[in-house]
């Protein structure tokens, strides 16, 4: 593929970078990135990946835009209330960059559809808001052998980590199973400072682009935690767990399954 003059201008600030160049920009143009959840984390990730010229962006989310989303889910706007999130997000992406092919899946990611969907992409971004889905994405990326950029936000705390299946610690190496409902706050009632979604979601987009370009050092075997109250980052080392039920030498999880959906009981 060759870039048009317009594309060369559009991506000139990338092409100028020795680490990217025309060659890297082509890699970006050929990349397929799946964003699971077109919400808080998915919005900024989708914006920047679209602007960067990612060839194919997949969006999966079954929700409709709600007024309470707009405080942080910046890809959706007031007139979008009541519309499917994937459609609302697709329109914004296409307005930013018509080069991007946007594939939308107006459904939930579940054990039944996860593998087939993920296999069609090069990198997966976790932008979901609940533990059952986070564990499912981790497991599906392991079985499909696709790199995963995990993100989480709650109140003033954010976390991002990159998982390279069979090479670096997976989510289950660190957190074996979802906590029982109520023991760890995990739902909308706990609240979140909206801008945190932007910080963590753009870090996820950065990681995804680095993976596509094959440059730098991925955030693998490391969890990066951000505390918005102190404006401080902390890195926590992780490593593959020989007792991991998924990627350890004696796995007990050998196929995808759905965890019970959690009830929304926050204990603080």
């Amino acid at each position, binding site marked *: 593929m060759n870039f048009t003059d317009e594309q060369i201008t559009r991506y000139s600030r990338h092409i100028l970078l020795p680490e990217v160049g025309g060659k890297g920009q082509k890699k970006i143009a050929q990349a397929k990135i799946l964003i699971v959840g077109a919400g808080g984390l998915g919005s900024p990730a989708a914006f920047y990946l679209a602007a960067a010229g990612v060839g194919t962006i997949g969006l999966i989310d079954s929700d409709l835009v709600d007024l309470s989303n707009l405080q942080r889910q910046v890809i959706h706007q007031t007139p979008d209330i009541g519309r499917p999130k994937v459609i609302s997000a697709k329109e914004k992406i296409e307005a930013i960059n018509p080069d991007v092919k946007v594939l939308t899946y107006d459904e939930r990611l579940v054990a039944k559809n996860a593998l087939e969907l993920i296999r069609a992409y090069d990198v997966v971004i976790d932008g979901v808001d609940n533990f059952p889905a986070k564990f499912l994405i981790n497991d599906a990326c392991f079985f499909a052998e696709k790199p995963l950029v995990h993100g989480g936000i709650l109140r003033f705390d954010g976390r991002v980590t990159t998982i390279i299946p069979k090479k670096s610690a997976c989510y289950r190496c660190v957190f074996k199973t979802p*906590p029982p409902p109520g023991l760890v706050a995990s739902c909308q009632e706990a609240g979140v400072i909206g801008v945190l979604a932007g910080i963590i979601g753009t870090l996820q987009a950065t990681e995804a682009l680095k993976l596509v370009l094959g440059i730098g050092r991925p955030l693998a075997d490391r969890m990066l935690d951000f505390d918005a109250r102190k404006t401080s980052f902390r890195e926590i080392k992780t490593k593959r767990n020989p007792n991991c039920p998924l990627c350890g030498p004696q796995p007990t999880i050998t196929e995808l399954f759905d965890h019970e959906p959690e009830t929304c009981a926050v204990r603080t």
Partner: protein
Amino acid sequence: MIKVRIPTPLRPLTKGQGEVEAKGGSIDEMINHLEGAHPGIKGRLCDEKGELRRFVNIYVNEEDIRFLKGKDTILKDGDEVSIVPAIAGGN
């Protein structure tokens, strides 16, 4: 003294403090000491049998105790212990 980092979900038990001091020669002793000063915290970290809950991660000086000696991991003066919970939100 051992410095213990308390994650947000547990801070209501420590009067909002993100960092507390504790004593103990091992993680087990430290948890019991914490429970004395901040009642209820042990139940959040350990199950009914006193074993660490599977989704609770404890780090000593940035090393996961799972790769050390678990609850028997030795602590010494000046060590920093972090309790690291899973974070689910994202939407």
